[in-house]
């Protein structure tokens, strides 16, 4: 399996390598070749110790919690804001002129 590795030439002269998505996989070496060897070994170690599973979290749990408390952060979030005031004026106008089309 292929893993993406980011290899960085540091100001100090060292070479670092990291595997995004595998937080523990970060190595430093004296050369690019050594960095690749080290990160390869690090990824292998992590893979041997890890398993990937999927948990099914019901959406209903999240949405219930989300809707329990009043979102006061929204209240007064756009006072006298033309990007919103003008928009709502347009909606109101649109509603009054719009009719059902048979």
């Amino acid at each position, binding site marked *: 399996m292929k893993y993406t590795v980011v290899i960085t030439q540091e100001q100090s002269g060292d070479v670092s390598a990291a595997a995004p998505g595998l937080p523990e996989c970060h190595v430093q070496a004296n050369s690019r070749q050594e960095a690749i060897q080290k990160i390869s070994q690090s990824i292998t170690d992590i893979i041997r110790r890890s398993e990937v599973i999927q948990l099914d979290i019901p959406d209903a749990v999240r949405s219930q919690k*989300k*809707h*329990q*408390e*009043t*979102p006061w952060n*929204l*209240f*007064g*979030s*756009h*006072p*006298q*804001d033309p*990007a*919103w*005031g003008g*928009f*709502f004026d*347009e*909606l*109101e106008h*649109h*509603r*009054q002129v*719009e*009719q*059902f089309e048979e």
Partner: protein
Amino acid sequence: MFLWDTNILRHFIEGHPTLRTYVKRIAWEDIALPSVVVAEVLRGRSEYALKASPIQAPPAHALLQETRDMLHCFHIVMFDTSCVIPLQQLREQHKHHKSYADMMIAAIAIAGKHTVVTRNRKHFASLLPKTQLANWIDLPPAS
């Protein structure tokens, strides 16, 4: 459930003090937006995003996302099959004298026995009984 009309949503984000008093007294789970209002708001923002000039497009799309996130904080009461007959009856009674969106909101309220909260009570006065209408902007709550 209290169904907010679009104008109440507007006053919420503008920070109207009377509306604040009402909202503080009522559980958030008893407040909702009818799906008609959600459709109106998203359509307005979407049309703006799709028709914006190159310079206006980035803020237009940012507003679309901000609007989507804001709507996500609300319960939504859907126009479902229980609303069809009330809407047909309202259309028969009022023909083309009423906004179709107003009638759809009223139909949701009739089907679910909800209260419509709006500043435009006159638009709904002939669509709903007084007991299913409220104005949380111009009429302060009883203390």
